[in-house]
């Protein structure tokens, strides 16, 4: 993987180190029925500041677990996870996450759900409403500020969850199959939005997805994981500038390669979605 990360517009070389994520020799096991069962083994992965990394892999190979470790919801693991050199032991406003299920609070309006992210930031109270409105507009939900989650469609709720995660401008944003619940059209739209927001904020993003095409379209690199226990099987560098052309022959060639890797088939399988058991519990 010697290819240079493609220089994006507006990235100043003098910018301070912001959001470099290193996983070294990461191990994680769960105890099931009294027995330790390894879920992640020997994960070594460095995400460069401002990089967009996609992760693909079969259901149950530990992708959600990895994100939970990085965000700091689970501190029982072996090895090290560091953000800009600091070891991760708990949650922090520097790290945001969009969960696989949107997890909006049903008892709050969309606006309140987004605003709660700012509760413990030093954003001045007077500016919060404006920032919230701005982020709701960013995900195309203006006009729904006062709606409760049950009044939103699945896709809208997922976009609201993205707004909630973005509003604190975390150094690292983790996305766990954020677009899994969206129909194909909305999906393309939100992919483009996500890319636009990433280009605008230039935060580090790590996105889990089961859509290889999506992983390649958005990611600077695509991490291919293998299951039982979860390991990094391959890292694919996508040397194309953003925003990309979905029809790019390179993307299609890489897609075929990754699908072959995932399914164990020789390249050339004309499938888009990885056909593993698609819906997962978390």
């Amino acid at each position, binding site marked *: 993987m010697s290819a240079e990360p493609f220089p994006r517009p507006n990235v100043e070389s003098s910018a301070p180190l912001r959001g470099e994520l290193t996983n070294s020799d990461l191990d994680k096991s769960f105890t099931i029925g009294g027995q330790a069962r390894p879920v992640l083994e020997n994960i070594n992965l460095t995400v460069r500041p401002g990089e967009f990394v996609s992760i693909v892999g079969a259901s149950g190979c530990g992708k959600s677990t990895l994100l939970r470790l990085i*965000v*700091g*919801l689970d501190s029982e693991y072996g090895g090290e996870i560091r953000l800009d050199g600091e070891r991760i032991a708990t*949650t*922090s*406003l520097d*790290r*945001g*996450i969009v*969960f696989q*299920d949107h*997890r909006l*609070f*049903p*008892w*709050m*309006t969309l606006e309140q759900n987004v605003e*709660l*992210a700012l*509760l*413990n930031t030093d954003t001045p109270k007077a500016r919060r409403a404006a920032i919230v409105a701005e982020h709701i507009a960013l995900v195309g939900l203006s006009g729904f500020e006062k709606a*409760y989650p*049950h009044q939103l469609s699945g896709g809208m709720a997922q976009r609201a969850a993205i707004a909630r995660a973005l509003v*604190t401008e975390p150094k690292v944003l983790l996305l766990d199959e954020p677009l899994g619940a969206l129909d194909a059209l909305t999906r393309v739209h939100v992919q483009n939005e996500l890319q636009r927001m990433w280009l605008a904020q230039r935060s580090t993003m790590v996105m889990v997805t089961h859509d290889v095409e999506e992983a390649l379209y958005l990611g600077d690199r695509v991490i291919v994981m293998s299951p039982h226990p979860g390991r990094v099987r391959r890292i694919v560098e996508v040397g194309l500038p953003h925003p990309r052309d979905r029809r790019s022959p390179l993307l299609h060639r890489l897609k075929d390669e990754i699908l072959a890797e995932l399914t164990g088939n020789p390249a050339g399988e004309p499938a888009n979605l990885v056909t593993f058991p698609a819906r997962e519990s978390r």
Partner: protein
Amino acid sequence: MNALLSRRAPRLALGLIAPALLLAGWQWLATSGGASAVALAPLGSVAAAFVELVGNGTIFGDIVATLTRAFTGFAIGAGLGVATGTATAVWPLLNRVIAPLLNALRQVPMIGWLPLIGLWFGTGEGSELIVVCLGAFFPAMLNTHAGIANVEQRYLDVGEVFRFTTGQRFRRILLPAAMPLILTGLTQALAFAWIGTLASELLMGAGGGLGVTLQTAQVQQRLDVILVTVAITAILGFAINQIIARVRREVLRWQPASI
């Protein structure tokens, strides 16, 4: 059919059919002679008793005394219940210590406490209030505990990601997430407080109230007074239920409408 039910006037009219039939049947039985006439006073004499009770002001005094007792007992009992249920849900150690005792105590039906309370505190107004408090306490406590102890980890995770303080976690996650069950607890508590009020008034007869009047009327064999009082009790209970249902709808307007 559903269109009919969704309009206010027809809905009210439909709800009045059963009471109207009841009254008609009543009048017929009461005036037809025979054994049932002894059990039911004719509507005319019940109305006369109503006018009499309203005229000399007893009925208002009774209503005020009973409502005051019911709501005071509800406020104290349910308040303590919600507080206890919250505390046991938040501190597992406390729960471990007092849950077995409380679970044993709640097996005693409210009325079962009357002899003991009577012996300890006499049969005055204070004892009546204690019965009401006890009736309200347990449903409020149990439902609050269940509500708060079972808040989904998914939501608590969100609070952790945004670095919620203990207070924020309580006010913005635990309490609202538990609110449907807490309100169920409060609804039950109010029903129990109402039953406890009438029962304790009937059995202890202290301090005035609808139950006390019922008891006196029974001794005096005033069938008309008994019927008026029972009817007023029913109407008040119904009104309280309506109010609670309204409050519930208002507080839980974030929930998808059921049915």
